[in-house]
């Protein structure tokens, strides 16, 4: 455990050198909800299939999913900063396992994601009258934690193996485009063409957002939630194993 906390301490010290960035991390999902969400709420008629008449309520889970996805990609990008500083290889000689290195890197950022989710959900309730299910907050918190970690592990595989900053940026752009838009993040899947729906249903972002939607505002198929929970858990474990294997490959 000592090694794990040493990584967390280091990450926290580095992040603390830029408090403005942490502040932005915490408030930007709310900004997204207030600008993009409110904009759409006034201009687009939500399908009755969504189960909600208010786009703000529907979009809240999408914003939380997007935020954890963003924190995960930023955290994975720190591998490149470590490489540029030369410390990446030195750290791999420290008395920590590869698993501890990965977990330590994401733990502090998971904490930021939790604060971010708490602030967003609370202000969505206060400012936008989103009908939040406070009793399900533990499920929301669990999904924010696992979601941020899962996406970080996936990104870490690319960040470790690709080694080139510009190539990694291309990967993140593609993942953002494909995973975020082919999912239930921005719109309900029911009215969409069958092929689109099939792709979206196989997308772990959809699983994460569906669970968050059920947990925060009670929308969605209750029977599907346990399946999606298991699916996202398996995805996270596979991504973690992949990231550890990537760190163990020849550096």
């Amino acid at each position: 455990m000592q090694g794990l906390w040493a990584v967390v301490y280091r990450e926290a010290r580095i992040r603390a050198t830029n408090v403005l960035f942490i502040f932005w991390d915490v408030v930007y999902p709310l900004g997204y909800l207030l600008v993009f969400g409110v904009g759409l709420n006034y201009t687009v008629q939500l399908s009755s299939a969504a189960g909600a008449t208010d786009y703000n309520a529907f979009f809240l889970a999408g914003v939380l999913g997007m935020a954890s996805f963003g924190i995960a990609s930023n955290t994975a990008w720190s591998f490149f900063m470590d490489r540029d500083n030369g410390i990446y290889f030195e750290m791999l000689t420290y008395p920590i396992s590869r698993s501890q290195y990965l977990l330590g890197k994401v733990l502090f950022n998971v904490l930021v994601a939790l604060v971010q989710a708490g602030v967003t959900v609370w202000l969505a309730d206060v400012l936008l009258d989103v009908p939040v299910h406070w009793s399900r907050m533990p499920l929301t918190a669990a999904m924010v934690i696992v979601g941020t970690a899962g996406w970080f592990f996936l990104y870490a595989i690319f960040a470790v193996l690709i080694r080139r900053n510009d190539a990694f940026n291309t990967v993140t752009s593609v993942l953002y485009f494909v995973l975020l838009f082919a999912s239930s993040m921005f719109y309900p899947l029911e009215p969409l063409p069958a092929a689109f729906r099939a792709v979206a249903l196989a997308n772990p972002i959809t699983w994460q957002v569906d669970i968050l939607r059920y947990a925060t505002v009670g929308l969605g198929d209750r029977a599907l939630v346990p399946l999606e929970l298991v699916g996202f858990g398996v995805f996270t474990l596979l991504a973690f194993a992949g990231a550890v294997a990537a760190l163990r490959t020849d550096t």
Partner: protein
Amino acid sequence: MSSPAIDVQDLVKVFRRRGTSPTRAVDGLSFTVTGGSIFGLLGPNGAGKTTTLRVLTTLTRPTSGHVRVAGYDVVASPLEVRRQIAVVIQEHAADLLLSVRDNLVSFGRFHGLSGADLRATTGRVMEQFNLAEHADRKVQDLSGGFRRRVQVAKVLMVRTPIVFLDEFSTGMDPILKRMIMAALRDESRAGRTIVLTTQALTEAEELCDDILIMNHGRQVARGDVHALKLLCGGVYDVALTFETLPPGIESAAAALRPIRMRIMGSTLQLALKDDERHVLEVVNQLASHGHVSHVEVSGASLEDVFVELTAGDKLATGGKRLD
């Protein structure tokens, strides 16, 4: 008899990259390092030194062979190996956004230091490396030499039995280099095993108890400095300082086919492989070209040994061993 600090047997490391033929970076290397010694791994660029060090520090897995560090196998027990070592890698390595103090504290935490012990050790090391007045400055605001100083200072924060240093003196001024060499000697006397690679052969000559010269991934020679110099019996370093460098001296010296030749200001430096009597005749002959103010003739340096053994492909299978 106690087991060696490092035991390498038939180490092979092959790099395979798509579209190119495999590269045998290390090719059947075997050696042991005695605990508490300063061991130098020397060789020209691409000889396999850094790859060997990367295997020893668990950064790279061997293709075949057995490597034990402090009694632990680098493949079977990498984490145990990492608990026994502190490493200065070849490139500059520091958290640039953190202060000097935070870099040292963070490193100490990885090795289990905490509380008052950590604070005291950080303070002592900063004093030792003249870093105290820069303690709260971010490393990104320091010069390259200072960054390297922070990097090397880290290994003195902890008491791991083995220290690896890959080209540690890069970018250091001579005074700092001397200070660190003295510190490394002290660490060795205290029982720590120091393994270093360097291109600065004078460093190896001054520091190392035991030297392994490698080329093309294999051992070329092994022994202490004096033993290695015997491999270059009949090599002499000649330095002639003229009042003013005489015209034509360069071509006259080149005609003697020296192992190496260098002109610095009004001084001509040569390394010659010949018998002693003939070397003195050559000195006389070169001195007759002008007014000589100073003459030095000495036996082979480690640099001569290095050039003699690694230039071209003078690779003796299994290498030469002199203990």
